[in-house]
């Protein structure tokens, strides 16, 4: 009896050990070339330059804050509760060495928090709650977060649920293909092809509209879409131009084609409708557009991959829904 049970115990331990070893071996042989690099610079020099841009931004006067109940509440709170992501290259990525959130969206949220509270410790300015396309509007409506900075495209349908401050960036979609693929040059060539995009992106809607005969595959995140193109599951990947350029920079097996972006995608800051925050945040945006802080942040984030001059900031309220 005891001999049998000790044999069984040894066997179970052996099986468990083998499975664990197999799992470790599988994870170790993942190809790092296709994974997006951890941008933002591990070097502390890069980070401190970024922090300087944030803390150099304007700070609101007491009268401006007291005039707006939403801003007053946040100043008393001491930090801004932000809904967003921490795995979006160029826009909101967590620097793994310091734990700080960096990127264009992250920087704007930190600048807004600095504007209201006046604090200078960039890491403590905002508290991030991860939101997805499925949860953003609900989180704003029940005040789980104060504002949403998540490459949030302004659409009239969404504007019925939440308020949008901005637009703060005019994005556009572009196309990524495997290097050497010359059959796809513009969005019209996508008809009849397999196109990958993120399941939480309006790029999916754009492709349905502009290339209705394309077969659309939706994946959960950027890395999966790039892997799909690289491995031949999809012929092309459509997403925001900035993100695609960032991926292509790190991955020599893919390239971005199509010239200028073929859609116009205005990003806005999501706010609760009843809070009265919109005019306050719009005033903040107007200030940083005029003072050049917006341009500095752009140059430090999106400007590192999108070549050319810093574009003019978009006109506030110029888009239906904003």
């Amino acid at each position, binding site marked *: 009896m005891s001999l049998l049970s000790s044999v069984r115990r040894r066997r179970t331990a052996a099986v468990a050990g083998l499975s664990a070893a197999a799992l470790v071996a599988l994870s170790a042989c993942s190809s790092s070339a296709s994974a997006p690099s951890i941008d933002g610079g591990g070097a502390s020099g890069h980070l401190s330059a970024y922090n300087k841009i944030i803390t150099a931004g304007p700070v609101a006067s007491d009268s401006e804050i007291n005039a707006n109940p939403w801003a007053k509440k946040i100043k008393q709170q001491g930090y801004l509760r932000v809904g967003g992501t921490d795995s979006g290259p160029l826009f909101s990525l967590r620097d793994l060495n310091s734990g700080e959130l960096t990127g264009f969206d992250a920087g704007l949220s930190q600048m807004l928090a600095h504007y209201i509270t006046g604090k200078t410790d960039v890491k403590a300015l905002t508290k991030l709650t991860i939101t997805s396309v499925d949860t953003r509007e609900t989180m704003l409506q029940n005040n789980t977060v104060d504002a949403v900075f998540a490459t949030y495209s302004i659409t009239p349908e969404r504007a019925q649920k939440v308020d949008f401050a901005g637009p703060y960036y005019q994005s556009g979609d572009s196309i990524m293909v495997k290097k050497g693929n010359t059959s796809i040059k513009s969005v019209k060539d996508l008809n009849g092809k397999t196109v990958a995009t993120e399941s939480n992106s309006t790029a999916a809607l754009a492709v349905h509209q502009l290339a209705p005969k394309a077969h659309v595959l939706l*994946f959960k995140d950027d890395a999966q879409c790039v892997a799909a193109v690289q491995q031949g599951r999809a012929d092309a990947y459509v997403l925001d131009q900035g993100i695609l350029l960032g991926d292509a920079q790190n991955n020599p097996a893919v390239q971005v084609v199509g010239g200028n972006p073929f859609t116009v995608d205005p990003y806005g800051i999501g706010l609760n409708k009843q809070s009265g925050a919109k005019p306050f945040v719009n005033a903040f945006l107007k200030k940083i557009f005029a003072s050049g802080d917006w341009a500095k942040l752009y140059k430090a984030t999106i400007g590192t991959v999108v070549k050319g001059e810093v574009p003019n900031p978009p006109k506030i309220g110029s888009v239906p829904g904003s």
Partner: protein
Amino acid sequence: MHLIVTHLGFLMQGVLFTLGLTVIGFVGALVLGTVLAVCRVGPITPLRVIGSAYVEFFRNIPLLSLLVLFIFGLPDAGVTIPLFASAAICLALSASAFACEAMRGGINSVSVGQAEAARAIGFSFLEVLRFVVLPQAFRAMVQPLVNVFIGVLLSSALAAAVGVAELTNRTQQLNLKYAEAVVCFLFAGAVYLVIALAGGTVGSRLERWLAIKR
């Protein structure tokens, strides 16, 4: 609600995909699970080891990891399988481990005397299983297998994360366009509930049909 009604065709296609994934996954799990259960209770030691290793591995790995490894890891090794097929295969592989254990539990619930008596009158191992043990074991296996079925149905929603256009994926697409999260996901939840209840009802009917009438 108006939103759901307008897009009912689109969503129903998603339901078809979900049902397809569930049926293929469950049938695959039953077949593979039966083979594994026979291996595990059989007299051949290497087969027993293989069966145990398979079950310990596939029962304890998250289905999402398996899906991602299969869909994004295999192509690096040279084998690219279409998305729907990959999702169905992963579901079958994962659920077969649970099905195997459910069947083994049912087989062990048949008293040893039955197997001994069958051996005594000359049945071989497979004949013992086929004519004596499995027919009696099946009664005990029905509800655990219904559990496996419901598990496969609900796990099929994970395939949405890797691009398969089943119900959850299509609900997410609708929500993306119209920002009606609560309505969309309540509808999807209701559909899953209805299918699971149907599975449970079939299970109870089967159980009653197999019950010993005294």
